[in-house]
C-alpha cells in the first residue's frame, strides 16, 4: 500500500515528476547510446578477425616485390610453411593455418582499339613480366597495366586477388566456413551460396567470391584464368559479403597450387591463429617474431581497433567518461530535486509523523518515489538510447584500414573492408540502463528520505 501511495503521490505531482523523469531519461539515453554504439563498433571490428575464426594474424613485411604475373601482394613477404606447423604446436595456440595470398594477373583483350595508346608500361617487345614495375602503384588508377602476351600481341593484364588455402582447414582463414551442422559431411555451409567447398583432392579448382563471380559473369562449372597459364574450374561460390575480413580474396584455390604458381616453394604469406586465451597473445606473438624475424607483423583485435577510423577522434573511454559525467550531474540534480521536494513537503512529512508514520515509513516513501522516477526514466532513457544507437548504425560507414587487405587499386571487386555495424538493442545494456537509473534514483530518494526522517514532527508542523 505504501508503494501505491508513493505512486499516487508521484503521479499527481506531474510537473515535478516529469522533470525528474526527463533528467534521468536523457542521461540514461546518452549512456545507453554510447555503450550501444561502442559495443557495436567493437563487435564489428572484432568480426573482421572473428570472420576468419582467428585471434591473431601473422605476416611478414618487406619491400614491395617486383612485378610478376603471379606475385605476392604489395609488401607481403613469403614465410616458410613450416612456421605454421611450429606455431600450431606452440602452447596457447588452438589452431593455425597458412594462407598464400597472391595477385594473379591474366591477359585480357583490351577495350577500345588502339593498343599502343593504352600502353602504360614503360617497355615494349619481348618484355618479361618480371621486368615490369609493380602494379600496386598503377600508372592509371582506372586502367589495367598492359604487356605483350604469349601470342605477341599487346594485351591488358587483369589482376585477381587469389588466396591459396588449405581445404582441410574450413574453420579458420579468409574463407572460413561458419559452424554448420553436417558441414564436414556434405562440404556445404552457410558461406557457400552455390557449388561446394574445395576438397583436398582439388587442383585447378576454385571457389569465387560471389560478387567477383557476378562481376565476371561466372557460374559454377565455368572456367577462369588465374595467372598467365592456368585455367581453374569454378566449383563453388562463396558469400563473404557479411563482414569485413582480413586477407579477403576474390578467388580461393588449393594452397599447394598457389605455391606452385608463385614458384617459391612451400611458403605462405599470412598465418591465421586461433588462441586458447587472451593471455596467449603476447607469448605467441613473441614466438612468431622469433621464428620469422624483425619484419614480423602481428595483427590482433586491438591492432584492428587502433587502425580503424571508427571513433577516431573520440575514443570509447572518452565517450563513456562524458556519459558518466552527465549521469553524475543528473544524479546530483536528482538529489537536489529530492531535497527540494522534502523542503516543499515539510507539512506533509510533519503530518505523516503526527498520524503515526515511523521515520522508516517516511524514508521508504521517498525512496519509493525516487525509484518510480528512476524506473520510468530508466525505461524511457534505455529505449531512447537504443533508438539512437540503432540510428547511428543506419548511417555509420566504418571500414577496416586498407592496410589490412591486399587488393590492388585496379581489382575487379572492392576489398571487403566495410564493417557490418549491427546496433540492435542489447537486453543487457537496456537492463544496465534501467539498473543504473534505479540506483541513482533510489540514492536520490534515500538522501531525501534521510532529511525527511530527520525532521522533528512538531517543528515541521509549526513551520508549515
Amino acid at each position, binding site marked *: 500500500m505504501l508503494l501505491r501511495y508513493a505512486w*499516487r503521490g508521484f503521479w499527481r505531482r506531474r510537473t515535478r515528476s516529469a522533470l525528474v523523469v526527463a533528467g534521468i531519461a536523457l542521461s540514461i539515453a546518452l549512456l545507453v547510446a554510447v555503450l550501444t554504439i561502442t559495443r557495436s563498433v567493437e563487435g564489428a571490428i572484432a568480426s573482421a578477425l572473428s570472420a576468419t575464426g582467428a585471434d591473431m594474424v601473422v605476416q611478414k613485411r618487406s619491400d614491395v616485390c617486383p612485378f610478376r604475373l603471379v606475385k605476392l601482394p604489395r609488401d607481403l613477404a613469403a614465410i616458410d610453411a613450416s612456421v605454421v606447423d611450429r606455431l600450431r604446436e606452440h602452447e596457447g595456440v588452438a589452431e593455425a593455418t597458412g594462407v598464400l595470398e597472391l595477385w594473379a594477373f591474366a591477359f585480357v583483350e583490351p577495350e577500345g582499339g588502339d593498343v599502343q595508346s593504352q600502353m602504360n608500361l614503360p617497355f615494349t617487345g619481348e618484355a618479361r613480366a618480371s621486368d615490369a614495375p609493380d602494379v600496386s602503384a598503377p600508372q592509371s588508377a582506372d586502367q589495367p597495366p598492359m604487356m605483350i602476351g604469349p601470342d605477341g600481341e599487346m594485351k591488358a593484364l587483369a589482376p585477381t586477388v587469389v588466396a591459396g588455402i588449405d581445404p582441410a582447414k574450413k574453420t579458420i582463414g579468409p574463407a572460413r566456413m561458419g559452424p554448420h551442422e553436417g558441414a564436414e559431411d556434405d562440404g556445404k555451409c552457410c558461406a557457400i551460396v552455390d557449388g561446394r567447398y574445395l576438397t583436398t583432392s582439388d587442383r585447378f579448382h576454385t571457389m569465387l567470391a560471389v560478387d567477383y563471380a557476378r562481376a565476371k559473369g561466372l557460374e559454377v562449372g565455368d572456367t577462369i584464368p588465374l595467372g598467365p597459364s592456368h585455367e581453374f574450374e569454378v566449383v563453388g561460390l562463396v558469400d563473404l559479403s557479411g563482414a569485413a575480413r582480413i586477407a579477403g580474396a576474390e578467388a580461393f584455390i588449393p594452397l599447394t597450387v598457389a605455391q606452385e604458381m608463385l614458384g617459391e616453394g612451400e611458403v605462405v604469406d599470412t598465418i591465421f591463429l586461433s588462441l586458447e586465451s587472451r593471455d596467449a597473445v603476447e607469448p605467441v606473438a613473441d614466438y612468431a617474431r622469433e621464428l620469422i624475424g624483425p619484419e614480423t607483423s602481428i595483427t590482433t583485435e586491438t591492432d584492428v581497433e587502433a587502425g580503424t577510423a571508427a571513433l577516431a577522434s573520440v575514443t570509447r573511454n572518452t565517450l563513456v567518461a562524458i556519459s558518466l559525467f552527465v549521469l553524475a550531474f543528473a544524479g546530483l540534480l536528482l538529489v537536489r530535486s529530492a531535497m527540494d521536494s522534502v523542503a516543499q513537503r515539510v*507539512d506533509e512529512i510533519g503530518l505523516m509523523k503526527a*498520524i503515526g508514520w515511523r521515520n522508516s*515509513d517516511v524514508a521508504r516513501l521517498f525512496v519509493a518515489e525516487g525509484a518510480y522516477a528512476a524506473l520510468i526514466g530508466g525505461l524511457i532513457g534505455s529505449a531512447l538510447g537504443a533508438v539512437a544507437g540503432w540510428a547511428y548504425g543506419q548511417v555509420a560507414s566504418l571500414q577496416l584500414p586498407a592496410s589490412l587487405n591486399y587488393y590492388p587499386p585496379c581489382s575487379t571487386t572492392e576489398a571487403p573492408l566495410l564493417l557490418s555495424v549491427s546496433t540492435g538493442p542489447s537486453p543487457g545494456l537496456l537492463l544496465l540502463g534501467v539498473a543504473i537509473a534505479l540506483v541513482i534514483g533510489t540514492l536520490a530518494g534515500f538522501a531525501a528520505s534521510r532529511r525527511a526522517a530527520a525532521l522533528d514532527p512538531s517543528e515541521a*508542523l509549526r513551520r508549515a
Partner: protein
Amino acid sequence: MDDEAYITVEGLSRTYHRPGSELDALVDVSFTVPRGQFVGIMGHSGAGKSTLLNIIGGLDRPSSGAVSVGGVDLAALDEEALAIYRRNSVGFVFQDAKLVPALTVFENVMLPLVPIPGSDEEKSAKVEAALEETNIGHRASHLPGELSGGEQQRAAVARAIVNDPELLLADEPTGELDRHNADRILELLVRLNREGRTVLVASHDEATIAVADRVLCLEEGRLTSERLVDTRSAAPEGE
C-alpha cells in the same frame, strides 16, 4: 466517565532554545484527565496550548516533568515507540486540516493506515466507516481543493479517527471556519467524545471551549485556572 486518570501531566515544562534567547512555552503544568472527558484548553495565542497538545500527543518532548497517557510514560518511549503510540492511541485535528492536496479525501483518510500491515479491503472498510461517521463520504473521491473549509475539517476528523484512537487532540479545530461549520465540527467532536474517546480541544474561542466538560486556562505557559462546565450547557445547536 471513568474517574481514574487517563492522562497525567505532572510538573510539565517546555523551554524552546533559540539563538540568544529562551522561550518558556510551558511552566510547571500539572493536571489529570479521566478517560472519556472532553477537556477544553483555553488561552491566547502563544499561551502554550499547542505545545501542551503536542507533548500529550507524543509529537514533542518536555524539558522537564512527566506525561503519561493510559498508564504509559511517554518519556520512556523512543522515537519508534512514540510513532506507534501516535498511530494507535492518538488522533490529531489541526486548525488548517492539513490534507495532502495531491490525494483525494479517501486517500487522505487512508493515510494513517498506509504503513500498517493489513488487507486493502479491511483498510478501505475503516476509511469508509470514518467517512460515514463524519458525514463526508459523498466527497470521498474529491481532492481537498474542491472541498469547503468545513468539509476539509470533517475529512481531517475522519483521518484522525480512522485508527479508532482513544484520544483525540484538536488544536484550534474551528479556527478557520464560520460559526455554522464550526458548530458542525464541534457536534462531531462531542459525538466522538460520547462514544468513549477522550477529547482535548485547544482554542482561544470561548464558544468552542463551551462544549467541554472541563476547561483548563493557560496564560504564558502556566495553568492559571480550571473549571468544570455544567454538563455541556453550552452545547451547540443540534446536540
